[in-house]
């Protein structure tokens, strides 16, 4: 297992480290931006700029976006951040499809390596990638507060930030599990990765559009992002348990299906 893990990590190191630093940098930038708006006392104007459909869809929670606390927290649920964390995890999780396509699976499984070990390796590495992304984001926030002398009293509490990161990680875990399942059903990495990456973008849009367009709410429950109600978490209106349990359940189902299918398929 160690040899497999180290090899996969070495293969994906540039993508992983690059994304980690981008995510950390994003937090720095967003805190800098929030500090600047705070300094110029411009949050009132930010509130005026909020689209009407967001105010209708989110109600009073929308106004959180026009506060220092909400802007800093936005770094943890900005579309770029959400999609980057999910797509990075999916990139790592789809490695079995690359191994099948390149024939590397022949060399690995011609040795006494259990088939499931390839999936366990990808699962572990992608889970570690999500955890790493969360750690770098938290580190970015910590550095941002110091770099821009942010008012600690107006920062989202450590508990809120931890809840956001846990919820975001659970959402990413759901996507990486789905990616693992698609990878074991595919013979080509590009097919697996683009399918799952596009699915993530579409599902994000489904959840986002549902904020302002009620008919979409009928299907928005299929999107894992539906179970990451970040503004409600920031407002203290939403618990973590139920959403994380749903995401964990979906992840578990995808992982179980992936292991079952991989143990039976021709390679």
């Amino acid at each position, binding site marked *: 297992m160690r040899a497999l893990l180290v090899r996969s990590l070495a293969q994906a190191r540039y993508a992983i480290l690059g994304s980690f630093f981008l995510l950390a940098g994003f937090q720095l930038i967003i805190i800098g931006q929030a500090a600047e708006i705070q300094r110029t006392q411009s949050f009132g104007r930010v509130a005026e700029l909020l689209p009407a459909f967001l105010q209708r869809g989110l109600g009073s929670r929308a106004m959180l976006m026009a506060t220092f606390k909400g802007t800093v927290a936005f770094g943890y649920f900005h579309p770029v951040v959400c999609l980057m964390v999910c797509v990075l995890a999916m990139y790592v999780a789809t490695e079995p499809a690359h191994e099948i396509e390149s024939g590397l699976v*022949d060399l690995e499984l*011609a040795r006494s390596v259990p088939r499931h070990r390839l999936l366990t390796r990808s699962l572990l590495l992608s889970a570690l990638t999500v955890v790493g992304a969360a750690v770098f984001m938290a580190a970015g926030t910590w550095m941002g507060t110091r770099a821009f002398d942010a008012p600690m009293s107006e920062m989202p509490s450590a508990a809120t930030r931890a809840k956001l990161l846990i919820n975001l990680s659970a959402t990413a875990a759901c996507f990486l599990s789905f990616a693992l399942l698609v990878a074991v059903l595919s013979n080509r990495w590009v097919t697996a990765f683009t399918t799952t990456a596009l699915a993530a973008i579409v599902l994000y849009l489904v959840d986002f559009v549902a904020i302002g367009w009620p008919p979409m709410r009928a299907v928005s429950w299929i999107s894992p992002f539906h179970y990451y109600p970040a503004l409600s978490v920031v407002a203290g209106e939403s618990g973590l348990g139920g959403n994380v349990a749903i995401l964990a359940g979906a992840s578990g189902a995808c992982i179980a299906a992936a292991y079952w299918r991989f143990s039976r398929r021709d390679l």
Partner: protein
Amino acid sequence: MTAGPAIAVEGLTKYYGPVIGIEDLSFDVGRGEVYGFLGANGAGKTTTIRLLLDLLRPSRGRAAVLGVDCHRQSLAARRLIGYLPGDLPIYPDLSAREYLTYLSGLDDRPVPRDYLEHLLRRFDVSALDQRRRLREQSHGMKQKIGIIQALMMRPAVAILDEPTAGLDPMMAQAFRETIADLKAAGDTTVFLSSHVLAEVESTCDRIGVVRGGRLVTSGTIEDIKRNTTRRVTITFADGAPPLVTDVRGPLGPLFARIDGRPIHDVVVEPFRLEDYVARFYGEGTP
């Protein structure tokens, strides 16, 4: 492990939807034997090999390596095998040495250091070659690394798919010497698929030919030589027309037929496995 054959294949069948990969394939490979598995492209050679490695799941039938079922006891069976794929997959960013280290680290089989060094020397893989990234290596060098990774742990059964593809004549000779050493040591069975029939003829004890997913002929090289007709041309010293005939078996009865006529020269076309096997490659009845 039992005292049976090194590889036992019984009624092995693999369908890819409506397409036949192999059908009712049965053969045995004895321990310590070098077995040539031949057939045209798409005949079912690679499918058979991938079934032995449990990369494909059989539609029916079974295969066993040293008595260990390739599917039900897949891990134990694969622990006995060294495998060279027909098209060697690589990690381009790894050096040859890192690649071998990675592959040896995947399972719990020890790699005898002196044997690895012996293989590296025999295949002329220098310390510099070992340090170069695989993406920078020639096809022949990658093939040599592929052979080494398949044999470095001295497997009980070596399955080699097109082992000399891309090797220069010196390295093809090094390969033949390696197989000869394994045969002499007697503890490794070699299952070899190749289109280079001169190499098969010089290295294999026995061959099997597949066509359309079925075994169409098998036998030892010696038996095949004995039972294959050879073209004999006899020219006579007295100016009589030459006698051209096909002979199966010893030449004694032919000379008896000549009955004391003065022979100027006898030309016997050498046996070529290629001529024998080519008959089984086509679609028609051999």
